[in-house]
Structure formats: C-alpha cells, structure tokens
C-alpha cells in the first residue's frame, strides 16, 4: 500500500499561480478524479507531480519520500507515470516498440498484449497510423507495462468521441484494481466520476470540492456550484 500525497501545492506559470493550495492524496488501488473547467490548472498540477515543472510551493511525497528535486526520469523509475494530454505515442514506432520501451522483457510485452488483446493484432503497425482510441490504448498499455505504482492521466478523452473513451475507462479501472493509484484528470465529468472513488473539483485556480465521487455525481446542484462558483 503506497500513497501519493500533495500538501498545499501551488503551481505558477509565467503570470502567477495557476492553481493554489492543493492538498490531496491518492492511495494505491483507488481512482481520484480531478475535474473542473478549462484553465483551472489541472494539467499544471499533474506536471508538477511528475517533474515537468517545479511547484512554486508545497510538498509532494511518494510514500513519505519527498519528490522535491528528483528528475523526471528518477520519478518515473519510482513508479510515477504521467500520461500527457494529447496522444502521447511515439508515432513512428510500432505498437510493440512503444510497449517494449517500458516493458523491457518479452514476457512484459506479452503480458501487455494479453491485457490489451485489441492491440495484439496491430503490434507491427506504426502507432501514429492508428485511430485516436487505439493510440490511447497504446499509451495505456505502455504505462501498464512499466508496472507503475501511480498513474497520472491527463485528459485521455481529448479529441475522442465519448463512445470510444467509454471503452478505455474499464481498462483504467482494471489497472487500478491491480493496485495502482490513479489520478484522473478529465473533462467528461460524469464519466470520470462514474469510475472514481474520490473526486476533486478545481475551478478558477482553487479546489472547490473534495470528497466522495458518487455524492458529487448524484448531486447536480453540488456539481454546478463547484464548477461555476456562486452562479445559479
């Protein structure tokens, strides 16, 4: 059982803080959905966890080890895998090569294909030529093969039709059931809340709701308030 813990994290970008004072924890085997309108600073927060950018203040710990100045590579080696926005495949590499990057052994590759059988028949294709949904599946499979402890997923649904994304969600759930902690940033609020255990809503650079995902999902007023502030 491990935990990823954020304490009062503030992330700045050029102008000033884009998201401030975020405290949250993700436990292995659970999914936390981080939702909210565009420009709420969700992506910046993920980037500060994986080390793409440095937070301007606050503390990020993986199992009580402060991540502080660890490089991205070291964080990834500690099992913290960040799936970026957009389709983060290496387009000219084949599906198998993409997965081999993290799997390292043939057994690992095979296991990934067992888990994602739809990709097995595409293993020799250049991943850039796959459909959007398949590309995201490659990204998931690649993350799975690296045996992560925590997955940070940033808007996997971007540019996908909802039906396609709905097929990816069970895969994320399955990975989490294997004991991986997932922090899921999504713009498809309801779908994300449907699979999540905990929910965090960020709007205008602040956390406006934090708690049970199901409660939020079933209460339109609560959701509305969290998203739009005081507006009706």
């Amino acid at each position, binding site marked *: 059982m491990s935990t990823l813990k954020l304490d009062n994290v503030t992330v700045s970008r050029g102008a000033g803080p884009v998201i401030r004072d975020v405290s949250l924890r993700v436990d292995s085997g659970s999914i936390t959905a981080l939702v909210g309108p*565009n420009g709420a600073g969700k992506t910046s927060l993920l980037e500060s966890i994986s080390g793409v950018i440095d937070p301007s203040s606050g503390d990020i710990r993986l199992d009580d080890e402060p991540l502080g100045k660890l490089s991205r590579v070291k964080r990834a080696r500690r099992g913290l895998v960040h799936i970026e926005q957009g389709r983060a495949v290496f387009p000219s590499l084949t599906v198998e090569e993409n997965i081999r990057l993290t799997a390292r052994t043939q057994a690992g590759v095979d296991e990934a294909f067992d888990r994602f059988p739809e990709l097995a028949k595409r293993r020799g294709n250049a991943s850039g030529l796959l459909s959007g949904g398949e590309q995201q599946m490659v990204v998931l499979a690649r993350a799975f093969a690296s045996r992560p402890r925590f997955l940070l997923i940033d808007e996997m649904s971007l540019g996908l039709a909802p039906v396609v994304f709905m097929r990816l969600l069970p895969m994320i759930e399955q990975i989490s059931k294997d004991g991986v902690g997932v922090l899921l940033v999504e713009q498809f609020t309801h779908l994300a809340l449907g699979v999540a255990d905990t929910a965090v809503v960020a709007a205008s650079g602040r956390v406006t709701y934090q708690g049970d995902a199901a409660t939020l999902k079933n209460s339109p007023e609560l959701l509305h308030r969290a998203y739009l502030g005081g507006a009706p």
Partner: protein
Amino acid sequence: MLRARNTALRAAGVPLIVAIVAVAVGYGLSVVLSDYLVFLGTTAIVAAIAILGLGVVTGSAGMISLCQLTFAAIGAWVVAWLNTIDAPGGFILWLVLGALAAGVVGILVGLPALRLRGVNLAVVTLGFAAAADVTLVQIQFPGATAGVSVLRPDLFSDDRSYFLLAVLAMAICAVIIHFVQHSRLGSSWKSVAFSERGTASVGASVSSSKLTAFAISAALGGVSGGLVVGQVGLAFPSSFSPIQSLALYVLSIMSGAHLVDMAIFGGILWVVVPELLKRWGVPQDWAFVIFGALGVQALTSGSNLGTGIRNVWWKRQLQRAGRTVNTLGEGVEAAGAAAPQPPAPVSTGAPVLVVEDLSVAFGNIKALKNVSLTVPEHSIMGLIGPNGAGKSTLVDAISGFLPQHTGAISLGGKPLHGLSPTRRARLGLRRTFQQDRVPPGLTIGAYMRFVARRRTTPSEVEDLLQFMGCPPSSSRLAAVDVGTRRLVEVAANILSKPRVLLLDEPAAGLSHEEHVDLGRRLLQVPERYGVSVLLIEHDLDMVRSVCSTLTVLDFGEVLDQGPQDEVLANPAVIKAYMGETEML
C-alpha cells in the same frame, strides 16, 4: 504633453549628440594615439560596423547568418574594382556603391530565408561563405595581383585622418541603425524573430522584414569591407575567410550586437583580445579559443553582455520607480470600475464579418464542419465550447493562416478568399493569440506603434493603455508578466482601429478578478473604438457580462447560436460546456 514632446526631442537628439561627441573623441584620438594604435583603432571600427550589421540580422531578426565577412568581401571587391577602372566619384562614392552591391547580394542570400529557418538557414549562409571564399581565392581582388592599391580620398589620405573617416562612417551607420531599430521596421525585425505568425497578424510583411534585415546587415558588411580595402590598400581573400565570419558571429552573440554600443564594444574586443595576447607573448590564435569558449558560455546561458548590463540597470530603475507604478495601477482600477454596464441588447448593426459554411480538415480529421456565423457591427460575440472543439482553428481560418479551408469569409462585404494574413490584417481584421506572441524585445510603446500601423499621438497611446489597465508605454515588455503582455496585445490591436477583432482567450493567465475587470473594459470597446469583437472565452461569468450573442462549438460543429441568455439557457450547451455530451 510638454513632457511627451520633450521625450520625443530627447529620443531624436541624444543619439545625434552622442554621435557628434564620438566623432570629436575620434578626432582627438586620431591626434593623440600612436600610429600603431590608430591602425588598430581603424580595424576595431571596421569590425564594429560589420558586427552592427550582424546585430540587425542575428540579434534583432533572429536569423543565424554565418557569412557576414562575405558581404564585407563584396563591398571590398567593388571598391577595389572601381579603383582599378579608375571610376569617377572617389573613394566615398565607391564605398557607398560597395555597400549597395553587398545589400543586393544580401537580399539574394536572404531569399532562401523566406522558407528556410534556423539551422537550415545557417548552413546555407555558411555554404555561401565557403563557396564565395573559394571563388575569391580563384579570381582574387581586382588590382591585388598587380599591386594597385586603393586610393584614399585626399582629405583622409594618411592613417590618422583615415581613422577619423572610419569613425565618421561608424557614427553615421550607428545613428542610422539606432533610428531604424527604434522605427516600425526595427520592431518588425524583433517581432519576426519572436513569432512569424504574430508579425503577419498585425499586418507587417514577414518577407520584407526578413529581406530588409538581410539587406541592411549586408550593406553594413559592405561598408566595413570597403573600409578595409582603404585601410590596407590591397585586399586579400584571407581577410574574409568563413572562419572569421564564424568568429564574428560568436562575438556578436557574445556582446549582444543588436545594441549599438555593444556592437562597438564587440569591435574593440575583436582587436584588443588578440593584441593583449600578443603583448603577453601568447600566440594570437588563443583569441579565437577565448571567443569560442565565451561564445559557448553566452549561448548556453542565453545571455549576452549587453542585455546583462542593461538588465542590472533596469532592475535598479524599477526599484526606484516601484512606488509610482503602483499608484498608477490603482488609478486604473478605479477607471475600470467606474463603468459597470450590462451587456448591450442584441445589436441590430449591419454584419461586418460573415463566415459561411467554413470547413477545415487536417488529414482525415475534420476540425471544423460547415461553420457559419455573422458578427454584427459594434457588438461582441462570444465563441465558447469545450477544449478541442475547434475554436482556435476557426480563428486561424478566419485570419488567413489556414488557406486550405473551404467555405467563404467576408469582411464588410469584401470576400477574403486567397488573401494572406498580412493583407487581411491591413483590411482591418485583427486577431490575438492564445500563446504569447508579443516580442519581448520591445517597449510597450514601440510595440503599440508597430501594431497600430498608423500615426498615433503619445497621449492616444497612453490613454488606451490606461483604459486597458496596462503599464505605461515606457515599460519593457520583457519586464511584465505574460498575462499583462496579452492585455497589451489586445490594447495594441484596438489601437489599430480594426473593423473586427478576434480575441483568443485574452484573459488566460489572469486571475478571476482580473477576468471580470477585463470584461468590463471590453464591454466599452465597440462603442469607444468602433470595433466588433469575436471573443473566445472559458469563464462563463465573463461571457455572461460581455457577450451579446454567442456561438457554441462542439466537435467542430455549431451546437447553438443566438442571443446570450437564450443560448445559455439551452441545457445541451451547458452540458457540452461541462464536457458531458455523452449524456445526451
């Protein structure tokens, strides 16, 4: 007002006075110094002129040019040739002709720069330098083999007075460059270095910016080459080898040659470093080793002496001026808050911007499908929709950056089909960018004048800046944060009095309170400046307070369109906005 005129006077006067003083000092030096030092001084000045040229093309316009001394060689060749055929006009005229010839070649070399960028361009210029070098070795300079040395003008026939001539030439070049750098042309160079799209979107031509930069830079190279021939009498290709062009490039990067004083300093370094080494009994080749090492240092740290020194100075200035800026900021807040108004009712103005059946495809992906919209005169239309809905693509297509689109766009009844972004901007269709495309090398005032493309009075500029809540025009863009920079971008485009202004998330990077503030100001824009606005915005509060009509995009299609309250009441719209189309 009086102050404004004073500043203008000072802006024009100070460089001239500095130039006159410099010439006087040059005269003094030419009398006092030993023969040898005078000769070295001439060399330094010649190098400084060449570096000044590099400062234009590399420092300001951001293109790597590795053939500066080839331009110098062309200038030198022309002067030497005119000398051997005993052309009328004398040395000074030959010098000017040499500069012109180099300038023409500069344009030719600059032509590939219209399509080639960065390293590719650098390789091309280096290849040109190498090819020209080989050719020069083959054909030699006119008169060089026969030993016909170039005649100096009578007035400046000895080394001392020739030094003075070089100082004069330097002063003239420096003053010209100073004024050009501060003109709209100079702004366009800095703008092209930072963003080509940004440059085109304000109606400046990218091609002519690049070519003028190359031409002027080459002409300066030509002057320095011509002076060299005059200095040494006979020119040899070895003085203009590609290696020296490279060294000059490194030196210009190191010293920050887009600043006139630093170019002169670079020229002095060019001479002083090898000279000092010689005095200390170290082989002169170490000079290039030093330049090389310093160049690596300058490039890796991304700084140079000139900007480094200036930054320290500016920081001091800022600390001193800190208080005044603050009080001004408060005044602005008050001005903004004084005009709380609900959004105007749906305007019945005549349509200015009409988009019909616009579709854009990137490969197989359809980014926009049959989008139609009409922006009425003097109104603000909001364009909303989830991430990836195609909002920015729409703005790109309207402003001319996506010529492959289908459908029709017209501005005030005039079809825009086939027009470049530059032409569209000149017709009064302006846009801002979601990314920061404001060149940080300019002051706010210079940027405003550059973007406005029309005669403006200083008070007009200050008024608008104050209205938009921006810092005063003397501030440097590099010193303000990105959010403010984008406000300045909006303000500058308003200053150009366009018919339609497309704003792509102008408030990104601002706090929620500043969002609302900006909304209040935008609300007055159509009336005050006669501009119609199409606004992309995520913050529903701002949309509600500003936009009279709305267009909602989702998956590249228009989901709903109409008066603000009706559209926002549509449950499908709210769901799309919250990313819940899957629930429909």
